[in-house]
């Protein structure tokens, strides 16, 4: 029950971030912070993406990190080329699966 309450309150906190500057012109971000707001997205999304790519199973290692970095680079290239999230994501995943499969067959990855 407390977990559900936490999720509901998390939903309220999320709604506040979405509605705050949308609902009235009187409430605007502080002038000084406006300059830095565009950095919020890169900082938060980078903090989510980078650890998962460099340490897919929680730690940096050749057999885990290199396939994931290769997949990330291919995804990046595909996204630059196609501008399509689906193509970039599926392409990266397929390359990652292929490398992981080969490493597993070679007995280098469990």
């Amino acid at each position: 029950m407390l977990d559900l309450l936490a999720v509901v309150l998390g939903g309220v906190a999320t709604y506040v971030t979405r509605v705050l500057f949308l609902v009235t012109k009187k409430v605007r971000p502080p002038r000084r912070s406006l300059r830095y707001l565009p950095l919020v997205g890169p900082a938060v999304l980078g903090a989510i993406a980078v650890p998962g790519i460099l340490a897919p199973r929680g730690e940096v290692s050749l057999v885990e990190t290199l396939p994931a970095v290769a997949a990330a680079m291919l995804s990046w290239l595909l996204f630059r080329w196609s501008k399509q999230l689906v193509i970039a994501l599926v392409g990266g995943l397929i390359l990652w699966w292929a490398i992981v499969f080969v490493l597993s067959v070679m007995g280098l990855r469990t």
Partner: protein
Amino acid sequence: MSAPDPSPDRERTRAAIRAGVRDGLLLELGYIPFDLAAGAVMAQTVVDPGVSIASGPIIFAGAAQLVAIQLLGSGAGIPLVVLAVFIVNSRHLLYSASLEPHLEGWSRKQRLIGAFFLSDPTYALMISRFERPEGAGSKREQLGYYFASSIVLWVGWSLLLAVGVLFGGLIPPWVPLELAIPLTFLLLVLPLLKDQAGVVAAAVGGLAALAAQSLPFGSGLIIGAIAGLVAGGIVLARTTPREVASDA
């Protein structure tokens, strides 16, 4: 002369709704691996599956949901969970500030309801619609597109998350999906890297989060985000003249 025929506007609104459904479905397709993987990760925690499933329609923000469920699973208290969700979703402050000037004709009620759906993909679709050379059309067309696309995304996200929570464990081990989550977020961050400060914010945020990932309650993400913001802010202050947008 007869009064203008209202049907063209109705037809344009219908077309906007159809476009919203189509774009929402296309974007949701890209989220399938992430959605299933997120559900599977949530299912591995000790948190009740019903709570994990409920987080989809209630929070409707994948990263924040993952953080919240993992924090709950590791025994964190409600204040820390809510704070973490607020910090992870604070980028939505930017979305609402950025979208507001485009919603000139929207009523207060429409804004209050629309805000609930203002997630990453909804913002991405809507801002690109507004910034087309022909714009987003009349108010009715804007509302039609916004609510059609966002409701499709909201329903799709919630359903796929539930499938991931309930059946994620059935995905065979030879089809690992754990990289789908970081890859999706990498692809979401790429369009945001428009200058040196953005690149530094993402890189420092990511490396700091990696260095701090062993800390309890998933606080590595928060530390990474704050470190990225500070580093990006320093670069921004040094590389950009100190002026604030005139519409501030």
